[in-house]
């Protein structure tokens, strides 16, 4: 498998992708500024995690959208770039450019909503202090990192699903994810069982904390392997893509 890469061509491709989807992107960023700004000012950090999870989920699950729609698919596949450049452009857009733009748009969003809260009546939005605004901006980074580092394998799975299935990809991927989760749990339980029988005896409480530590490490490794595997599968799928 020969990989072709030309920087100028790749930059031209990124520019093109931006122009093709600029209207949707700008609309999304404006909604993100207003809605996200409001959410990140709220003290309940659970909402911020859900918010980022939803955004990253949509960005990954719709990554190959232009390759799914009948007419744009033809344009995308015939563009004089290599398969690798095509794939990398989608990957960069979904996992780097869009999250970065979301974060950058959220900072002024929080600031504007924070300032607006002092003008609006309290029953619409309680007034925020400068400290609340800074806390809100801080939450952007912590929530993003928490979601990104914990759920990357799910995003990778839906990223693959967006090129693998033409229809109902979310639903099919959800079923696949459930299957993978069950398989992983069985796998981890087996590792857990073998290790406990083989190496560990004595204090149960100590063992439980030891086991959970092992489970965490094994889970992280499996998650990373799944992610690389699904991202690679998405690449292979793109190279074999036919506009039928």
């Amino acid at each position: 498998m020969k990989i072709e890469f030309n920087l100028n061509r790749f930059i031209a491709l990124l520019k093109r992708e931006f122009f093709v989807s600029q209207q949707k992107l700008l609309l999304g960023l404006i909604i993100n500024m207003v809605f996200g700004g409001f959410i990140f000012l709220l003290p309940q950090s659970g909402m911020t995690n859900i918010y980022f999870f939803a955004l990253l989920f949509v960005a990954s699950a719709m990554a190959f959208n232009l390759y799914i729609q009948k007419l744009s698919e033809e344009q995308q596949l015939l563009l004089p770039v290599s398969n690798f450049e095509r794939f990398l452009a989608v990957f960069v857009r979904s996992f780097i450019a869009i999250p970065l733009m979301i974060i950058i748009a959220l900072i002024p969003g929080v600031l504007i909503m924070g300032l607006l809260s002092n003008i609006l009546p309290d029953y619409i939005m309680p007034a925020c202090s400068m400290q609340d605004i800074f806390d809100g901006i801080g939450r952007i980074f912590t929530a993003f990192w928490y979601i990104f580092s914990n759920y990357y394998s799910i995003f990778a799975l839906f990223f693959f699903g967006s090129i693998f299935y033409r229809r109902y990809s979310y639903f099919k991927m959800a079923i696949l994810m459930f299957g993978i989760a069950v398989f992983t749990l069985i796998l981890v339980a087996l590792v857990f069982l073998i290790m406990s029988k083989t190496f560990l005896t004595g204090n149960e409480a100590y063992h439980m904390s030891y086991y959970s530590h092992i489970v965490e490490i094994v889970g992280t490794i499996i998650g990373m392997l799944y992610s690389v595997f699904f991202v690679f599968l998405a690449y292979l799928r793109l190279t074999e893509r036919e506009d039928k």
Partner: protein
Amino acid sequence: MISLTNVDFAYKPQRLVLDNVSLELDKGCIHGLLGKNGVGKTTLLRLISGLVFPQSGDVKVLDFTPKKRQAAFLSQIYFLGEEFFAYKTSIEVFCKIQSPFYPKFSKEEFIQYLKDFEIEDLSLKMDKLSFGTRKKVMIAFALAANTPLLVMDEPTNALDIPAKAQFRKLVLKAMNDDKCIVISTHQVRDLHNLIDNIVILDEQEVILNATNDQITKKLFFGIKGEGDTNIIYSEDTLAGKAIVKENTQNQECNLDIELLFNAIMQHKEEITKLFNL
């Protein structure tokens, strides 16, 4: 330039669209790909462009294998589909974002082709244009891309009558000895005086691949006169009975594509035998 060898293709198993098709198309020619609806003209063009892959057989275009979709190959071919994506940008921006991928693209030519189609304002939004006008923009871009191979699927669909005539002029203007243009259509009149070589597809196979000269050497097209023999096909017209007959006396005549197409659809074996197919 284009070579297909024993190509089979099916969208669904057991339902072949192309069956053991072999075909050679050279540069320096405008090839007309003709056939009834659903015979596989578009599929053949998509195989050439690398949009679909053959189940068996070999496709070579400009010494590349289209299936690999190498950037060097794709920059030398422009495929203009019957329908296309409506960019939500102005014509100017469309040109700006699409042209860097085609090394021989000429903006001057693009603007000139647009003017020839009576489109002067480049700030017009592509998605707000009528389908026919959008098609004119796409044709202008395809010609200005100056790729060695230009593949057009039903390019005259949705064009108005003056634009169809303009299309023929522009294609001839853009053509040179290093280029190869393949145009598929089921509206054979639109290709009148445009194509040099005719490829006819029927029932999953190529039943004719011959230049205009080769055809008129073997077949005579004209109005029935007294003493005409060897008539293969005839149809009534206002001018009289139009006939296709074997050209045994090397008579000069003008190729009538529509008559040829109708004749070959009804007398396939008789005509293909003349061309040793």
